[in-house]
């Protein structure tokens, strides 16, 4: 479903060139649950950005669902990504000015779903993740675990084929972290492909496959 072929990504900062990904070759099948581990600065987040089509590689290929999108324009990537990839972040990235249901509903704003359908889907996903009773609250009124549940709900509300999670438990205590890990397992069991970046060997071990990164290369 997702495939890197000799994929390279470099960042230029002044006179310094940093190779974030160095000729990566990696294939992720549909329904897989992959954990990407490695020390800080090894290229994990860059890998996730390219997987999520938020960034494009400088060299090599990136195949998404049968299309090499390495040279796609931003609007093409946008169209391809819409509704097919969900994202979960370490810092939740919830918008404080919006309520829980508005935060989740935002993911459907650019879909073809009608207002009624959007409302129903938001209600369903909040119910599924156990935060329906907090629908009218602001993110700051929730615990960290609840905030991440809302973030997961936002990622799932579009029913994506792929879920990309960047350190999803990084800002949570162990109990709430465990809750999120169980949620991911459940989501994967329902058929969603998951790629998770994590520092935690214990959490990485919960995935079906683990890939290690060091200095931009798979080890």
């Amino acid at each position, binding site marked *: 479903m997702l495939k890197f072929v000799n994929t390279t990504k470099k960042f230029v900062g002044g006179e310094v060139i940093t190779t974030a990904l160095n000729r990566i070759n990696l294939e992720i099948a549909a329904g897989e649950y992959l954990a990407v581990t490695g020390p800080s600065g090894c290229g994990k*987040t860059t890998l996730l*950005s390219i997987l*999520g089509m*938020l*960034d494009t590689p400088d060299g090599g290929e990136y195949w998404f669902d049968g299309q090499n999108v390495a040279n796609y324009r*931003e*609007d093409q990537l*946008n*169209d391809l*990504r*819409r*509704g097919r990839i969900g*994202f979960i*972040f370490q*810092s939740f*990235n919830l*918008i404080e*000015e919006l309520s829980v249901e508005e935060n989740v509903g*935002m*993911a*459907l*704003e*650019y*879909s073809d779903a009608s207002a009624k359908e959007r409302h129903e889907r938001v209600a369903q996903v909040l119910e599924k993740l156990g935060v329906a009773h907090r629908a009218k609250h602001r993110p700051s009124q929730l615990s960290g675990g609840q905030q991440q549940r809302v973030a997961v709900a936002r990622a799932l509300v*579009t029913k994506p084929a792929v879920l990309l999670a960047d350190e999803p438990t990084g800002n949570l205590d162990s109990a709430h972290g465990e809750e999120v890990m169980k949620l991911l397992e459940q989501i994967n069991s329902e058929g969603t492909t998951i790629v998770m970046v994590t520092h935690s060997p214990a959490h990485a071990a919960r995935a079906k496959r683990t890939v290690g990164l060091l200095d931009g290369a798979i080890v």
Partner: protein
Amino acid sequence: MRLPDLRVAWRLMVKEPGYSLVAVLGLAVGLAAFLLLSGFARYSWSYDAHVPDAGQVYVIKHRFNVEGGRRWRDKAPLMLREVARTTPGVTQSTGYLAWFPLNIEVDGQVHRLKSLTALPGFAELMGLKAIKGDLDEALTRPDAFAITESAALRLFGTTDVIGRAFLLNSVETSSTARIAAILRDPPANTTIPFESLNGLALSLVPPMFRDEALQGQQGWPGNLLIRIHPDASAAAVQEALQQFTDQAVKRLNLSEATMAALAGARVMDIQLLPLRDAYFDGNVVVDAQSLPVDRGDRRVIGGVIAIAALILALAAINYVNLATIRVIRRQREIGMRKVLGFGNGRLAFQFLAESMLVALLATAVGLLLAVLALPLLSELANRDLESMLSPGNIVAAIGIGLAVGLLVSIYPAWIAFRVRPAEVLAGRPDTESLPARRLRQALSVLQIGAAMGLASFTLAVAWQTRFAIDGSPGFDPAPLLIFEMNEGRKLGADDTTRAFLAELAQQPPVAGVAVSADAIGRTRNPWSQEFTKEGGRPVTFEVREMTTPFFEEYGIRPVAGRLFDPKIDKEDDPVPVVLNEMAARELGFASAHQAVGSALRARSAMQPQIDTVRVIGIAPDLRLRSLREPPVGVVYHLWTGGMTVTVRARGSVADAASAVRNVWQKYFPRTELDMRPAKDIYAANYADDASLAKLLSLATIVAMFIAAIGAYVLATDAVQRRTREIALRKLFGARRRDVGRLVAKEMGVIVLLAAAVSLPLAALAIARYLAPFSERTPGAYWALALAGIAALAVVAIATARQAGVAIRLKPATALRS
């Protein structure tokens, strides 16, 4: 404030040149506009302040209620000078006359001087001192006069002209006189401007005039000034002068009917006006003897001060917004400083140093801009404002700049105080409360609203002025030229004038010549009479005198009957009169045609006899004066005593003007011809409106510029604040246009709010401005829509860059940081 703080502030400025440019330029433009507008207001408030102890000096005004439209004049019967001199509390009583405009011949060229004849004591009261020569000699000898420094330089290129004799002429008499004194120029902001000063002893002054000026036996009016002792009451002095006048007017032997028509009012009212208020006394009759003095309006000057303060406030708001956004961006640095031991005091000094540096640079740039824009402002305001750039004013400007720098540092410093290092360094920024942000947004609404409101009012003033100037007066003024004959050169009583006008009429480029007491569009000597139709009630109408070709030369056609005709009517025939439509209606005629042929009884307040006149025709209602004055009933009658000549060009107006100049030179070689197109007479009524519109345009441009910066700052703030949201929306598939729409929506709400706040106020202001006009431009209120669109366009342009930033935002980078 420490040197290292300033050094850091400087480095920050250099590091972000775009930010620094916007911050400095925004404040500089605001300061420049404030300095110019407040300087103009100060200039206007300082009229006649150069007169020693000016607060104790008063102008004696009078209003003759029997005729003349019961309007105030800034003159009074000359006999009151002597009366005032002996009134308790009056320490000086003097005045000046503008009866004898001097022409001076230099190297064969005749130049008109703005000349005054000083009454005894004038130089002392005004504090005049000669910078060369002897002023006393200049004002007391029959062959001497004084001239100002700039007039000497203009005429001779030097001020070393003491003792040099020149040929002077006035009222067609010539004599040689020498310059006995050079005077410092009166400041531009005076209601008593002059280039030359002579005494009553000057041989050119006819003895009869001299006697009247000193004794006032005939009751002629002159400009009188008195100085009152600080402990004396101006009201008591006014009452004493009024009592004397009440007795003196008894000599007029006014008829019982005239006295009855006064309905209890005095024959003549006397009023003392503080000299310092003379500039704002705009409601006085301007006659042929009035000095060419600009008058101001207190409300306009008050408005200018308000606009100046508003513009400075808007510019300061910009800086506060910019600095606050930067604090939000710099919260990690601020948090780090706090961790390293910086207390709030040190932080405050750091922000003070930054804003002071910006304020100092902005003051320097603002002063430069003000210097560069001063000639433009002088032109726009139609005033000589060079004196505004005095060292004192420059020091004051620097002080204002620094005070602004101090004030605008307070809010960003307060935001910096609130930065919590632990939160910020842990990646959880929390810097500005929602109410504080809303307040800043409200201030931005104020900025855009102010620009929008100002723009709509400016457009309305400009359109109304254009409408008033361009509006048809009831005839086509394009081929008409107007000039004044010299004093004593009345057509009916002077053979030279008759020959001059006859020769003028024979010139090929001249189609015709007419003489009238005044030009249409101007009323310098209002004159009215009471008219009664058979069985009707008496009605007072304005009387306009003219020669027989007048209506023909103006191309005016009758509404009913006929107008004056040189082939039928005789000059100075007192019987035939022409009414305007309004007069016919007010007399009670059912139609214009019904009025034709009717006899009217005419009575002058000053003459006991009643004349009978016959209406030969009805003229259309012409626009006889400014649109601010309501149209009135008018009776036209024949008289050759007028001094205003109208020339109609046959083809080219320039050729006709040239022909007039040639014939004038032949008949009156020693006097200057002052000729202007008829359209200028109307335009002169709206000179202040035109100046106001231009001043407002300048203020609007500045306000729009500041609003543009405000919108830019607001958009920057919005994009910075919503970076995470925009990135997320992009993750969820938002297209470029969706992101652009997001920014546009936020700014659009601001513009809508600004419109909701400012446009109703602007509509009220426009309504108040238009209220005194009898005719109004139909498009005045479209100014509101146009200003709204202009503000929207300015905001859109200012926002475009930040919208671009939002559109190009990389979600991966934004969410990672």
